[in-house]
């Protein structure tokens, strides 16, 4: 950074003398009163150091070769030329600053953009992002709240409370974005976690209510998709009631859905094996826009254990009665035991039936899928031009966000770099000037 003084006119006498010096150096005559200046200039010029002919020849040859790095003439070749680092520095300095700035800026922008892009894609693909398959909560999705009904909900978390106490009921309503993370954190459902290990002996019955919204014309397609998912995961359809098309009976609007007409609807009752519940729900969520989802969980370990114990007790009693019957001596005694045995066997059948129902209830999860036909809802159906516009907008938004974040990162870095560069140049200039002191 060079600070230039304002150009002020020189004193006429000074200017005249300087001109005389210039004239003398050019071999021109000067005024008589300035002849001493002329002599001074000529003498100084004549006394100037001259190149050694040998060095001049070497320098010319080196110049003719295009100033190669090797073979630079001069007596001393150590020092600046000896260091690889100084050589690299010299090479860098020989690159035009504009090009260095452009290259560095482009590289920095690329690095930051890639980093931000990776971070953004991680967020989009992470547990909370739903991998882009689930639309963001809309006005119809309801509040993103967790409602936990638990006898001991104060203090410990709902999960720990449910684990610690039997017959605890959990009923959670998830907004789509928060759903997966909450499900993962729920004890007994996330396989492979410590909670899963501890809760393995727990018997839980679950139920899920899923509300999907789609274009009225797509209600049938979504319903078919629901059937397909049930079939894919070895589940089955308990009941279904689907009405498709724009002329169908409008479904009552929910609070906050003002202005959105709905037409076409369906309700499908499914039973999905608990082992495949999460996968099935994931596939169901891909079929259409998830308006809401409610997961219910009830710990029925006590019921299960009681029913099992009851069956075991009745079986033991039946065995005991059979042994008594075999040992009976009188017909009266035998008849009495038979009556008692009949009663126990009836009780055993009831108990086994009940136990079987509990087991079945645990193994098969009731999933209620409600399909709502709504105009203007982004359905998960066939990809069309509207989807293309939507996706394009989303891509542009993401790119804009990446550029914005990149700019936010690069601007201060560039400012710091620029200041450092200016400071370094000023320091170097100052040190060089100090060498003349």
């Amino acid at each position, binding site marked *: 950074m060079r600070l230039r003084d304002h150009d002020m006119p020189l004193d006429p006498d000074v200017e005249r003398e300087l001109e005389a010096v210039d004239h003398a150096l050019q071999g021109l005559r000067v005024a008589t009163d300035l002849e001493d*200046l002329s002599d001074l200039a000529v*003498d100084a010029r004549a006394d100037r*150091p001259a190149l050694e002919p040998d060095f001049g020849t070497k320098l010319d040859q080196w110049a003719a*070769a*295009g100033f190669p790095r090797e073979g*630079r003439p001069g007596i001393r070749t150590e020092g600046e030329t000896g260091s690889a680092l100084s050589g690299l520095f010299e090479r860098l300095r020989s690159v035009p600053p504009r090009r260095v700035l452009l290259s560095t800026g482009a590289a920095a922008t690329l690095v930051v953009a890639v980093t931000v892009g990776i971070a953004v894609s991680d967020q989009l693909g992470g547990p909370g992002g739903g991998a882009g398959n689930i639309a963001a909560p809309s006005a119809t999705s309801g509040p993103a709240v967790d409602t936990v009904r638990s006898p001991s909900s104060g203090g410990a978390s709902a999960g720990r409370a449910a684990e610690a106490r039997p017959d605890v009921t959990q009923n959670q309503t998830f907004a789509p974005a928060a759903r997966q993370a909450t499900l993962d954190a729920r004890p007994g459902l996330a396989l492979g976690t410590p909670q899963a290990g501890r809760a393995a002996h727990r018997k839980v019955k679950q139920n899920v209510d899923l509300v999907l919204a789609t274009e009225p014309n797509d209600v049938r397609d979504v319903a078919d998709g629901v059937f397909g998912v049930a079939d894919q995961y070895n589940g089955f359809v308990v009941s279904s009631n689907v009405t498709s098309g724009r002329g169908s009976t409008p479904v009552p609007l929910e609070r906050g859905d003002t202005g959105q007409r709905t037409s076409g609807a369906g309700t499908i009752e499914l039973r999905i094996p608990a082992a495949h519940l999460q996968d099935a729900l994931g596939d169901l969520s891909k079929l259409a826009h998830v308006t809401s989802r409610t997961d219910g969980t009830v710990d029925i370990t006590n019921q299960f254990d009681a029913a099992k114990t009851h069956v075991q007790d009745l079986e033991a009693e039946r065995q005991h009665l059979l042994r008594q019957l075999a040992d009976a001596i009188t017909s009266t005694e035998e008849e009495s035991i038979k009556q008692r045995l009949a009663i126990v066997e009836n009780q055993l059948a009831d108990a086994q039936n009940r136990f079987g129902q509990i087991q079945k209830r645990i193994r098969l999860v009731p999933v209620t899928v409600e399909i709502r036909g709504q105009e203007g809802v982004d359905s998960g159906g066939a990809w069309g031009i509207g989807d293309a516009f939507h996706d394009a907008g989303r891509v542009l938004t993401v790119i804009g966000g990446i550029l914005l974040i990149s700019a936010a990162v690069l601007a201060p870095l560039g400012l710091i770099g620029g200041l450092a560069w200016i400071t370094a140049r000023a320091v170097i200039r100052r040190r*060089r000037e100090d060498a003349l002191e």
Partner: protein
Amino acid sequence: MRSSRVRNRGVTQTLAAAATEAPSGVDTAFEELYRSSRDDVYAYVAGLLRDRSAAEDVTAQAFERAYRRRRTFNPGRGSRRAWLFGIARNAALDELRRRRRGARLVTDPEDDALAPAHEMAEVAVRRTALRMAIAELSPRERELVALKFFAGLTNGEIASVIGTSETNAGTKLHRVIQKLREACDEAA
């Protein structure tokens, strides 16, 4: 047709001659700068450093740097010659910083044989006085002498090289000349 062939042969001969004269790998503008400034750059650097070997090394270094950075030259910021001397100055100051030691002033021996006897004595006295006066100058002042008298730069080019205005450069230069003038007058 014949005249065309003759003309073509003439052009070919001219190009061939130019090719043998012009250094390969050096562009014309830089070659011209090199040829016109080689001796001046050396004289300036040697006058500043007062060490012949160091001056040779710095001169070569300056031309090498200038050649590598020849595309960074911006005509809007001064003449090509001033740009070259700016690079040479930086190299010389770096050398000064590196060494931080005094050096002798090296000048060419005087050509006594060419001057008449009565002039020889007068010129010798005058030049000795001038040489001593220059040696007494501060490095900054000596740099101005080197730029003006050894390298033959204009006041505008000197201003560009040392990073000041032309007026300021002229004023500084005039002060130095006055010093030399007084020293020479005293010696006379």
